């Protein structure tokens, strides 16, 4: 008899919840998520990774190794984007060379995520999936991701000013638990509005002229809190309102819709797109300046090529707009204290500027 097929995937912030939800609804396979990211994950990942590959590769590889140790034997990698699209082949090769036995599926093998390629890959994983079910639950998951992102935006704005400690995070946990139990569009939407109301009722103590900071930069470090050493948490503890653009719903559909509009907004600086999120980040820098934010934090993994191409332009945009900006480059061995010190200095500077 064939061993039981257990499916697993790498981490990306809280998005393991909708992905797990989707896979549970669609396939008959057992779904386990990778163990939460720890120092050990990144150590394992960097041990077997190429030298100067970007950090997300190392995190993903660490996730895969840990989940394979836990018994998974079907792995999924997303793909698409700059270097990210080629992760899967190299990771598969590295893991096979390490002696693991597993099936490996990439959602996007060529450049773009298309519904068709998504469909074909899911069919390969489990040929018994019905097409109707797939469409129904895929859109439900996208909706769930969108609701999650909306709430996250609200949390980021207000979490720095909560009066009762951890009230936001506790409620968020409760909300995510409840999302996984939903059955259809109506019950999901009901839950969303219920929790939205409850979030608004949470007590906050927010001054009118609080510091507002925008986070721009590469997508993985933006969305996976561990890889940016909980930068957002740190900012929240300094009583700062945070605005972050990158989330999965942005990548899934907003990005391609906004491309032309964004490019026109920054035509003074940019004639073409830069690849991955490069052009988007230049747009965001300009947008944050025009909206009167107090500072910008740019984060990326070490050696992220699209961002390196964009940074000189972002620098010029910020010079023209007289906007303070700080750049963080994360690697597997970045020291947490160093980041904290720089962040505190940046915070002091912003406060002095504000007067």
């Amino acid at each position, binding site marked *: 008899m064939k061993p039981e097929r257990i499916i697993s995937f790498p981490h990306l912030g809280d998005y393991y919840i909708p992905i797990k939800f989707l896979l549970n609804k669609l396939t008959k396979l057992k779904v386990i998520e990778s163990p939460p990211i720890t120092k050990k994950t990144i150590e394992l990942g960097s041990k077997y990774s190429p*030298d100067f590959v970007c950090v997300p590769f190392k995190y993903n590889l660490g996730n895969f190794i840990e989940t394979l140790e836990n018994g998974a034997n079907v792995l999924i990698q997303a793909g698409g984007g700059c270097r990210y699209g*080629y992760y899967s082949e190299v990771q598969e090769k590295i893991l096979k060379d390490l002696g693991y036995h597993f099936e490996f599926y990439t959602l996007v093998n060529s450049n773009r995520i298309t519904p068709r390629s998504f469909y074909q890959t899911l069919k390969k994983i489990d040929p018994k999936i019905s097409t109707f079910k797939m469409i129904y639950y895929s859109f439900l998951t996208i909706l769930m991701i969108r609701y999650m992102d909306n709430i996250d935006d609200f949390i980021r704005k207000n979490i720095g000013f909560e009066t009762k400690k951890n009230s936001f995070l506790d409620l968020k946990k409760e909300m995510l638990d409840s999302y996984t139990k939903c059955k259809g569009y109506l019950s999901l939407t009901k839950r969303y509005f219920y929790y939205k109301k409850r979030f608004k009722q949470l007590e906050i103590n927010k001054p009118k002229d609080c510091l507002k900071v925008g986070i721009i930069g590469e997508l993985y470090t933006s969305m996976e809190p561990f890889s940016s050493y909980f930068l957002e948490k740190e900012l929240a503890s300094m009583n700062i309102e945070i605005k972050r653009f990158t989330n999965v719903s942005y990548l899934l559909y907003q990005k391609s819709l906004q491309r032309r509009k964004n490019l026109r907004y920054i035509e003074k600086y940019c004639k073409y*797109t830069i690849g991955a999120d*490069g052009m988007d980040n230049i747009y965001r820098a300009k947008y944050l300046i025009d909206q009167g934010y107090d500072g910008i934090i740019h984060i990326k993994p*070490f050696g992220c*090529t*699209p961002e390196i191409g964009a940074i*000189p332009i972002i620098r010029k945009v910020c010079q023209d707009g007289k906007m303070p900006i700080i750049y963080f480059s994360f690697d597997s061995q970045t020291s947490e204290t160093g980041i904290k010190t720089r962040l505190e200095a940046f915070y002091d500077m912003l406060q002095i500027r504000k007067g």
Partner: protein
Amino acid sequence: MNKITIGIPKALLYYKYKDLWISFFENLGCEIIISPNTNKQILEDGIKFSMDESCLAMKIYMGHVYYLIDKCDYILVPRLKCIKKHEKLCTNFSALYDLIHNVFDKNLIHYNLDVDKKEDELYAFTTMGLSLGFSYRKIISAYKEAKEKEKLLNERRISKQKSLIASSNKIKILLAGHPYNLYDEYIGKQIERILEKSNIDIIYSDNYDQKYLETEVKQIAPHNYWTYNKEIIASIVHYQDVVDGIILVTSFPCGPDSLSNEMILRSVKIPITNLVMDEADANTGLLTRVESFIDILEERRKQK
């Protein structure tokens, strides 16, 4: 009317398209200034004007642009997004135009290639020629002539290398990497000089007939989508039976290479070494590594 002078930085894609670009502008009757080989001054200028995390080839490019800045009317800075359908290039090439434009604020020529959006080479050359004020007919005939010349020179190089492989009995090493790394004074030439001193025949990965590219790439990396990396992989597959060893030349920290080199290193069966070059001046470490690699190859020869 004064002749238009066009500056071409001798870095990055210059090594790939030099025949095409130079003969195109010559056919149009423009004057061309090409920056000199990379020297210490150019490298230092380049480092000054670029991010410390960008790759060595990119830093060198910035230095070359800076050298040309007050010596010509226009600088040719290509913007290449995609040169084959459904394939990609390193994002540095698509950022290059806007990057240079923002850092130096100089007249650049619009040269934009994006095959996925139906902007092919002919289109790029036409818009470039039109922006300089030439007529359609002149541009198209100049382009066609230049293209033929490029093809001819390329074939000549390939056949020269073929005859070298067939005739010589010395140890042969395949120098594999992007052309802008292989032929740059500060990257590939350093290795080349050491190899020449040791009396070794050098085979270059870019002198390669792309007839069977797809099937050859499939042997190592079926899903690779970087056009230039595919060419390197294919040439390694093509030449691995006729050479004694392979040296992979990479500039630190090249994005696409970091992944595609891993695939190559894990799949190739003959001796292979990966030399990662950065802006550090001392080349003693390089010398040691190349010499020990040559020793290995010589021992292997003796044992056969």
